[in-house]
């Protein structure tokens, strides 16, 4: 257990170093580029040169990278030129918004896809299984923005039941709760399609094991075979996949956020990238990778806790 944690923490550090170095060199390799991005396209070359010298950008890229790491270590993430605020505050605000969306979506995805996946996988190739498999395949095939447009055209344009944007400002007569319905629905549908097929595949595999046949032949009711014998083993592989969804829910939902104008983390990075807001891009990338690796580790941990065979 101690070795496991140590190994993964080492990998986390290694990944953070690799990514921070890559993003840093990508953005700041040529000294003039940074000053140019800060001053904008209309600054004269002299102004750019002056700022480059003032900021010490004409030093070798490695020296600047070490400086940057030092600033990071002291908690200084820089200043966002896009949002005109310290990067730390900007990231925290958007991350909190996304966490709200992700938490609601996650709370819907896990029970929904477990139920559908188990029900489909317990009798392979039955009519119910085929129906669920087809439904999840088709739903997972529709891009998020298309799903958003389809749902919005029904519930916003046609029926007028829900608002088409989720800016989290309770204006226009719509509560925040009503605003969250469509973004959550799009995320849940798109993501659950994938998770259902994973849980189903695992369940199908477990149902073919000899001990399930024994339990059935012993005369146990089908219900208790599923709930007490199959379920736990069938959730072993998917639990890692489910944990990986947290990563998608936080960093991958930029498309959904854009459809509904939701002020979340993904859209913040998109705006930073388009605006060439270097400090925000660098810090945002680090936060995204940190979350990704941590959810990965949590997935492995959950797997270890569920499976006594590899509990070291």
């Amino acid at each position: 257990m101690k070795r496991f944690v140590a190994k993964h923490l080492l990998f986390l550090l290694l990944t953070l170093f690799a990514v921070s170095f890559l993003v840093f060199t990508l953005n700041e390799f040529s000294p003039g580029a940074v000053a140019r991005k800060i001053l904008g396209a209309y600054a004269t070359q002299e102004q750019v040169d002056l700022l480059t010298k003032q900021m010490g950008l004409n030093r070798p890229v490695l020296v600047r990278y070490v400086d940057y790491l030092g600033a990071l270590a002291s908690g200084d993430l820089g200043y966002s030129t896009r949002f005109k605020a310290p990067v730390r505050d900007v990231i925290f605000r958007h991350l909190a918004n996304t966490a709200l969306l992700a938490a609601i979506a996650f709370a819907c995805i896990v029970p929904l896809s477990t139920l559908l996946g188990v029900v489909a996988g317990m009798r392979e190739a039955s009519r119910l299984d085929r129906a669920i498999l087809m439904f999840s395949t088709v739903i997972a095939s529709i891009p998020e923005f298309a799903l958003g447009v389809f749902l919005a055209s029904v519930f916003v344009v046609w029926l007028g039941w829900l608002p088409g944007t989720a800016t989290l400002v309770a204006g226009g007569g719509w509560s925040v709760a009503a605003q969250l319905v469509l973004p959550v629905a799009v995320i849940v549908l798109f993501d659950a399609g994938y998770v259902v097929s994973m849980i189903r595949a695992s369940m199908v595999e477990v149902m073919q094991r000899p001990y399930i046949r024994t339990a059935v032949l012993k005369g146990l009711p089908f219900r208790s075979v599923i709930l007490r014998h199959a379920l736990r083993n069938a959730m072993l592989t998917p639990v890692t996949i489910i944990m990986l969804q947290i990563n998608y829910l936080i960093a991958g939902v930029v498309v959904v956020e854009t459809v509904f104008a939701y002020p979340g983390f993904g859209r913040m990075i998109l705006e930073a990238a388009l605006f060439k807001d270097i400090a925000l891009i660098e810090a945002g990338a680090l936060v995204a990778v940190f979350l990704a690796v941590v959810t990965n580790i949590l997935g492995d941990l959950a797997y270890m806790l569920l499976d006594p065979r590899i509990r070291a």
Partner: protein
Amino acid sequence: MSTPIAAGTLSRPTPAAARARVMRRWRRRLAALGESTPATVGIVIVLAWVTLALLAPLIAPYPPNANDMTALAHTTPSRAHWLGTDHLGRDILSRILWGARPVLVIAPLAVLGAAALGSLLGLAAGYYGRWVDLVITRVCDIVLSFPVIILYMIILAHFGSSAWNIIGVLTLTKAPIIARIVRGMTLDLREREYVAAAKMRGESPLYIMLVEILPNARGPLVVDMCLRTGYNVIIIGALGFLGIGLPPPDPDWGGMVKDTYGMMMVWPHMALFPCAAISSLVVGFNLLAVGLRELGLRD
């Protein structure tokens, strides 16, 4: 010419016989595909889009970027414009037909690139083991742990987006997944007798990897490539929707939605039709993948 037939077929089949055998094998495979309903539906959808894309210059009623100013007063579907026009008076049907072309070139090309790069990495990692394996696996893990859409945003916003840049980032981010699959299979396959035999014959490692191991790993690889193609179509659409996809004005499904979804309260058709187009294409690829997997499991 009269070559001794018995000796010829045993050591080296004639080109005609070999071709006939390949043809037979393919016919058998196609017949097998027909047995699976999802695979059949998937193939029909994908082939329909390929045909429409190929014929776009002939069947599109208008040039994709031509503005019909007279249509602006009445943009909804009509006899002149079957699917209506967009906010700039461009015929939506023509733009959807033309928009199928870049997607159907970029998505498969990126998958092929990822398959080539990923197979090489996976083969090397699985075959050599030790530090080669360690380095390749770690690098792949790092790339895989990065939320890809954020990577795309940073790279494409930095280098600008063109078809080649999109193919590049899709190749680089998908290769590790393929590498992981191929590595797993190589670990298993390298212990087989025919690999040992090839080693004893003195074949080079490259020959063993490409000729002895890779062909035996192709089953899961083909299914995965099919899924990746559908997934790439989604990403290309998403990039277009986010405004970092193929540059305007040439039609691109994601870009068409981006330009018009803000007007959905008034003209929902402008965004709905391109959304339906991209969804149907991805459904086609994914159904095909489901069907292929079923067929693979059956034998």
